[in-house]
């Protein structure tokens, strides 16, 4: 029991540190791709520390509250996945976190924030079916939704679910909020909606949103990890390497595509989900 509590505390502290470092590396690599030197590795941490010291302007009482609720569900999702818990529950907890975030966007009544919230809602609609199909696929081959069972199987999940893996990588771009699917809010300055759904947040609330995104990155990478890792110790090294490669590809995509319209984002995500996701499950059904 005590071990469990220690483990949960370690996850809550270490996950955002890892996520923040990934964000720092991301910014440096993005800058190098654009021919710039880029910020320091710890820049995302300086940003958050600065935001914590700033005044939090709130347009109404619930506006800030939603962000903290969203943050709690995001932490719950991270703990569930990384402590070997139920991934289906984690997927629903992640959705709840997104829903709170969207409600926060609507609560501000600002036109930019509202359009950002609507776009975030569309993004959730676009990626959610694939995430659930990935969870179903992982269950189908392991007969368990527990992430500790999935990473203890004898054969890597990707051997049975190559199409679902590809589909999941496609919708990862939504989850990591990278171009061409950074419709609701973008990390970059070029945004037609000021800062989209995060426009009205400042100070500590914005710091929480940043840290929440770090958790989100770790969750997304944990899903990729589960596709590769098996009971063999060496497979965990492969899983880490695959996670790094996938993230590098995401950075490359982020820097080489412009933002698409929401219709194309939604259509393409659903077509990918229907074709790759269902095809993979049907083939699995017929062969196993």
């Amino acid at each position, binding site marked *: 029991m005590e071990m469990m509590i220690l483990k949960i505390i370690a996850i809550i502290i270490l996950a955002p540190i890892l996520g923040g470092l990934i964000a720092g590396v991301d*910014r440096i690599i993005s*800058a190098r791709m*654009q*021919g*710039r*030197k*880029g*910020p*320091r590795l710890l*820049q995302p941490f*300086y*940003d958050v*520390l*600065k935001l914590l*010291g*700033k*005044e*939090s*302007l709130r347009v109404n009482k619930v506006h800030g509250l939603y962000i903290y609720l969203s943050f709690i569900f995001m932490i719950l999702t991270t703990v569930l996945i990384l402590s070997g818990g139920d991934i289906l529950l984690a997927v629903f907890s992640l959705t709840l976190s997104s829903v709170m975030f969207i409600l926060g966007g609507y609560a501000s009544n600002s036109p930019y924030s509202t359009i950002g919230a609507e776009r975030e809602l569309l993004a959730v609609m676009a990626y959610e079916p694939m995430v659930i199909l990935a969870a179903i696929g992982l269950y189908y081959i392991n007969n368990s939704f527990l992430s500790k069972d999935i990473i203890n199987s004898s054969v890597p999940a990707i051997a049975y679910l190559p199409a679902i893996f590809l589909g999941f990588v496609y919708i990862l771009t939504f989850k990591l909020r990278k171009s061409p699917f950074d419709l609701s809010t973008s990390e970059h*300055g070029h*945004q037609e909606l*000021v*800062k989209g759904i*995060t*426009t*009205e*947040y*400042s*100070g500590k609330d*914005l710091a929480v949103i940043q840290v929440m995104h770090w958790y989100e990155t770790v969750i997304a990478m944990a899903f990729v990890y589960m596709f590769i890792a098996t009971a063999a110790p060496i497979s965990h090294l492969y899983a880490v390497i695959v996670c790094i490669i996938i993230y590098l590809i995401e950075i490359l995509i982020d820097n080489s595509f412009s933002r698409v319209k929401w219709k194309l984002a939604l259509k393409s995500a659903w077509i990918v989900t229907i074709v790759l996701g269902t095809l993979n499950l049907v083939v699995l059904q017929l062969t196993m």
Partner: protein
Amino acid sequence: MKAITKSPWIMHYDASSCNGCDIEVLACLTPLYDVERFGVINTGNPKHADILLITGGVNEQNVEIVKQLYEQMAEPKVVAAIGACACTGGIFAECYNIRGGIDTVIPVDAYIPGCAVRPEALIDGVVAALGILEVKQKNMKKRK
């Protein structure tokens, strides 16, 4: 060094400038000067910004907008007047519609002269503004 001096997010507004200084502001973000090295991000959102960079002499139609942008920024915040027009009104100071300088509308913390201002001077001015920002944050904590 405090975190606030390592992560200054800027917001750039053109208060009826001739666009010369605005080009120089954006030049700072290009690969040649790359101010993101120092953690500077061009946010375009007053609620996220720490430093307000304003160019131009402020005409009558800009006054309310400049005031509103300043009020929407979260404390601590600093304002830097970019270029001769923003500092004093420059060659447009005598015009019927020009207020003549940003400090006629909102308090300015750093004056960065030049017509157009050079990117080096701009970076220098922003660094000076960071010192003021740090002091303002200290004062903010004392007030609490």
